[in-house]
């Protein structure tokens, strides 16, 4: 807790206040808060049913919270459709490797946001700029230091799981203006492939992109996160840092075996 209070001056890029969401009688989110500060990796951990996924869905626009506010860059947001979050500059990477396997890397990167040719070819014939997209895709991939991908016209299905997830992360990085949410990005991956993705997360942070990382994997969380938000029973139970607490502490908070002082439940930026 010693870092607390030293960098209070920073204002959050994304702030969620009192998010509540229930499905029928199940209360998935029970007035949960969240703050994400510029240039940090915030991990959100919690047991199954702690409200991680629901919170992320609310933040990305996939779900509409029953109550609560989402403030992005000082502006209050009201997301109504899944694409609203995206338009506001929030990109989400899902655990299920949400890429189209038969399409090539460039097509996947620009899927749903294809570049048009300049001039009448683009405006009247609505012709896409295929070579331009390939070139830009190459740059995006290179910028993230994904050196293992050589051919941008390769079908995604020829890539390894880690590389596929890298394509998804690159897509998020290319279009995410404000922040990127990674929802269990390594859940479907092996050890080595997970490592690639963790590296990507670090390189995103190095480029100043704030990241929210949802994960079950404590070692991974402790490796990359600046702050760790622990969810319990639809509420924020604590915010800790990898330095202030051990993995066992975090698990203890998750399960309710350890409670954290009220004032420590909202640790702000440590970077």
């Amino acid at each position, binding site marked *: 807790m010693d870092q607390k209070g030293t960098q209070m001056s920073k204002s959050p890029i994304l702030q969620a206040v009192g998010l509540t969401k229930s499905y029928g009688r199940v209360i998935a989110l029970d007035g949960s808060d969240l703050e994400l500060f510029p240039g940090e990796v915030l991990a959100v951990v919690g047991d199954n049913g702690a409200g991680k996924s629901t919170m992320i869905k609310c933040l990305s626009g996939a779900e509409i919270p029953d109550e609560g506010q989402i403030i992005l860059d000082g502006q209050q947001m009201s997301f109504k459709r899944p694409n609203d979050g995206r338009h506001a500059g929030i990109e989400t990477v899902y655990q299920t490797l949400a890429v*189209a396997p038969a399409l090539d890397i460039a097509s996947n990167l620009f*899927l749903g946001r*294809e570049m*048009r040719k300049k001039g009448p070819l683009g405006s009247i014939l609505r012709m*896409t700029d*295929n070579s331009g997209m390939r070139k830009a895709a190459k740059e995006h991939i290179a910028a993230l230091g994904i050196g293992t991908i050589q051919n941008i016209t390769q*079908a995604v*299905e020829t890539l390894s799981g880690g590389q596929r997830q890298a394509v998804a992360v690159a897509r998020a990085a290319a279009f995410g203006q404000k922040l990127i949410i990674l929802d269990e990005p390594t859940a479907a991956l092996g050890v080595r492939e997970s490592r690639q993705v963790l590296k990507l997360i670090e390189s995103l942070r190095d480029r100043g992109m704030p990241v929210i990382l949802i994960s079950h994997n404590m070692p991974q969380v402790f490796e990359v996160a600046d702050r760790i938000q622990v969810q319990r029973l639809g509420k924020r139970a604590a915010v800790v840092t990898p330095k202030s607490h051990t993995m066992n502490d975090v698990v203890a908070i998750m399960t309710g075996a350890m409670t954290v002082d009220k004032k420590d439940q909202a640790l702000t930026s440590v970077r």
Partner: protein
Amino acid sequence: MVLVVASIIFSFFNENFLTPSNFSLILQQVAIVGAVAAGQTLIILTAGIDLSCGAIAVFSSMTMAKLVQGTPGEGEPVGIAVWLAFPAGLLVGMLGGAINGFLVTKVKLPPFIVTLGTFNVFLALTLTLTKGTVPSIEMDPFLLTLGHYVNIGPFRVTTGVLFMFAMYMVLAFVLRYTSWGRHVYAVGDDIDAARLAGISVNRVLMSVYIVAGLTFALAAWIVIGRVTVASPNTGGDLNLDAITAVVIGGTSLFGGRGTIFGSLIGAIIVGVFRNGLTLAGVDLYYQLMAIGLLIIFAVSVDQWIRKARK
């Protein structure tokens, strides 16, 4: 490849096979199936299938013909002007596609079931319209446009053949160089990934079925040009022939993979087989068998390629 090999083999059996005039004939025979296969390709690319394509084509052709001709028997037949009848026929095709699209996207039925149903509905409508007879009529010259012959070098083909080629050009361009085209592939490839990428999947599917309906109606125009009457029986085999062409052309029935020109090649391969086997004096029944084996071979290759990629 198959096309070239088959052509060479057939040329051994009959020296007339590799002549421009025979190829012109094949192309004319292929024009209708080819045009229907173009629309079918779009649907199969989205991992759907349209069993009603032939029925829609025939129903469109009957609509055009009947509207121009009017209803005979009850006094003076009153036909409406072709510039109204022709768009009405196209509209019928698009409407048929829209009904399929609606049932697939909104009612969320499998395309196979939907189009199996609408196939029967459109067939019934056609038969109701014609009361089972073949109206032999003096067709409007505009509707017969695609039956005219043109000479290109040694080839003598109908305008319908050229029109079909043009349809392929347009669709190939659209698939390759527009966002919509990419979205068609993406939806067929992985519908969830497409949705997560922000593509409005239902809109893409709906538009695919409508555009396909339009191509079926345009195929109907070629039908009228070729057979000079609109016959309710023309489209009986059209359904399966079109699907055959698409599958042989290498488009995966699981969606997301394939090219539109593959279907054109597929249609020509079927045409070449039919024609070549006939010229070689093979019994019609064995011809059917050969086409059947060809389909099984083509789908096996598709499966094999998919496995090899994984």
